[in-house]
């Protein structure tokens, strides 16, 4: 249960950071924190008490293992989120070059 609560806390903390951020790089990294909450949640769901890693190279065929499906999902998730962070950081670099500022509240040309 604690693991699940950690995931919830990470999500909330990250979202708070995104809402109140004053620097775009900080904002992107807070998005990253929110992403890690999904990893923790997925992996915690897949944990089996007393289970071994899902690699059958040197363990007998019938040992109980943790859920490998969530690990595959987390792998996909990590790649997906990392690439989004890359695109966002590229936009941040350009924003800094164009506007000279990294303050998200300075993005105000599109209003109304």
């Amino acid at each position, binding site marked *: 249960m604690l693991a699940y609560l950690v995931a919830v806390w990470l999500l909330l903390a990250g979202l708070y950071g995104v809402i109140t951020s004053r620097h775009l790089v900080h904002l992107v990294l807070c998005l990253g924190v929110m992403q890690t909450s999904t990893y923790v949640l997925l992996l915690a769901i897949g944990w089996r008490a007393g289970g071994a890693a899902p690699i059958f190279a040197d363990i007998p065929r019938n040992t109980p293992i943790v859920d490998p499906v969530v690990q595959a999902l987390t792998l*996909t998730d990590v790649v997906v989120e990392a690439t989004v962070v890359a695109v966002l950081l590229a936009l941040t670099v*350009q924003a800094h070059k164009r506007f000279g500022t990294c303050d998200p509240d300075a993005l105000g040309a599109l209003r109304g």
Partner: protein
Amino acid sequence: MSERARLVLGLGSLAALGALLVWAVGGLPAFGHPRGPYADLAPRIMLDERHVANAVTGITFDLRGFDTLGEELILFVAALGAAVLLRALRTEGAIEEAAADEERRGPGTAEALRALGAVLVGPTLLLGIYVVVHGALTPGGGFQGGVLLAGVLLLVYAAGQVAAVERVRPVSLVEVTDALGAAAYTLVALAGLVFGVAVMDNVLPFGTTGSLLSGGTVPVLSVAVGVEVTAGVTLILSEFVDQMLLRSRRGD
């Protein structure tokens, strides 16, 4: 919206969201006892029918291989996108000049860092290739190994070999490799249609568990993804390194 209003709205929503989420995770199965037929069936199928020792890689590249195609395409598009977005305000030749300046000035990093960087390049390359190729047997696979290999670029940069970084870059080569990796994955998926029952069908011989060529198309796809991820992440990293070079040249 004023700062205060935003803070009030944000904190209120987060409190409510937190309460809802805690209520929700209370309904999950007890920690340590995952339910579900899928979790039990999947590794069993991978081991018995496909002779893949690493259940996670087997699931990633065979059972749920179509998801991996989508994920690989996300990396492909993001790499191209980062390149497009970062190149827009750059003039031709500025990078080469900045690199030459940096070379002339001499690296500003510490001796120890440069030595460590130089020493680690070789083993990292080897480790990366090992992880990619042995995806079906040990923890690893195309994605993990690809990122390791892309990290070699950063090691080279840390070692102060800026010119070498530029030589790694003929960016067109990296872009082409990225695209070819993605194309290779798609072609293997289509091969499943042509030679087998359905798209993504595993049509190569399965081999024996524990040997390098086991799992049919799983190691092939792992290598394709490894190539694609290496090229994609290298492209992203090199674009960002270029930005750093330009900034240091401007003296920021």
